[in-house]
């Protein structure tokens, strides 16, 4: 194992960074994540209920709800609003499907200047890629075990 060798300066710097970090209480962070995450789910539930009231099946309404949230998140990310929500909500803005959409749109916007292929298109998947890869791998492994053994 290679261990990163730290110079005295680096250690001093790390200590300084640690001291200067803004101290925000954990409780407050949790409350904000709870409120933002809960609110996004509330918006989702509202959309779903509305669609079901127009005669859509529960399963189809669930998919349309996800698509609607992804659309809203893409729009708000484009307008720079989702960044503000994320700064306030932390994990509350990352965990809902809107956070997944944000993780696609934000780098797409930022790296567009590096080109249409290796900039915009490639960077869209910097976080979404791992989510899809590990999602599909775990779904295949767990799903197959469930299907074959049980």
């Amino acid at each position, binding site marked *: 194992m290679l261990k990163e060798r730290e110079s005295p300066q680096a250690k001093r710097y790390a200590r300084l960074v640690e001291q200067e970090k803004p101290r925000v209480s*954990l409780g407050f962070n*949790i409350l*904000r*994540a*709870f409120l*933002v*995450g*809960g609110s*996004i*789910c*509330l*918006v*989702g*539930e509202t*959309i*779903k*209920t509305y669609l079901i009231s127009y005669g859509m099946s529960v399963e189809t309404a*669930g998919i349309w*709800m*996800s698509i609607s949230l*992804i*659309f809203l998140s*893409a729009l708000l*990310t*484009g307008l*720079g609003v989702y960044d503000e929500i994320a700064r306030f*909500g*932390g*994990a*509350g803005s*990352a*965990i*809902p*499907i809107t*956070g*997944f*959409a944000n*993780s*696609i*749109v*934000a780098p*797409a*916007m930022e790296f*567009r200047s590096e080109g249409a292929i290796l900039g*915009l298109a490639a960077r*869209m998947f910097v*976080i979404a890629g*791992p*989510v899809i890869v590990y*999602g*599909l791998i*775990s*779904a*295949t492994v*767990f*799903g*197959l*075990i*469930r*299907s074959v053994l049980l």
Partner: protein
Amino acid sequence: MNYLLAFLFGGVICAIGQVILDKSKLTQADLMVILVIFGSLASALGLYKPLVDMFGAGASAPVSNFGHVLTQGVIEGYQENGFFGVLQGGMAKAAAVLGASIIFGFFAGLLFRPKG
């Protein structure tokens, strides 16, 4: 009542996520991957669907639902088409959501400029 349950359950998942972020060195990307794997495992054990039935969007808006949808796709695919279904089912079931993410993501990236 459904609205309250969705708000509370979704909020609690995000609050737990925030504790993990603050108490560990994990990034938001790590957290999302972990949640998807958890969602997939819970789904294979038959635990995720009851959550969706009970808490609605509180369970189906978080990214863990992506793992659930993929896993249900694999299980249903196996029942219908055997191993071909295993390969096809997961992505087939998630196709609309993945498609929307890529299409909206692309056009948002094309149309909007980053601030600052």
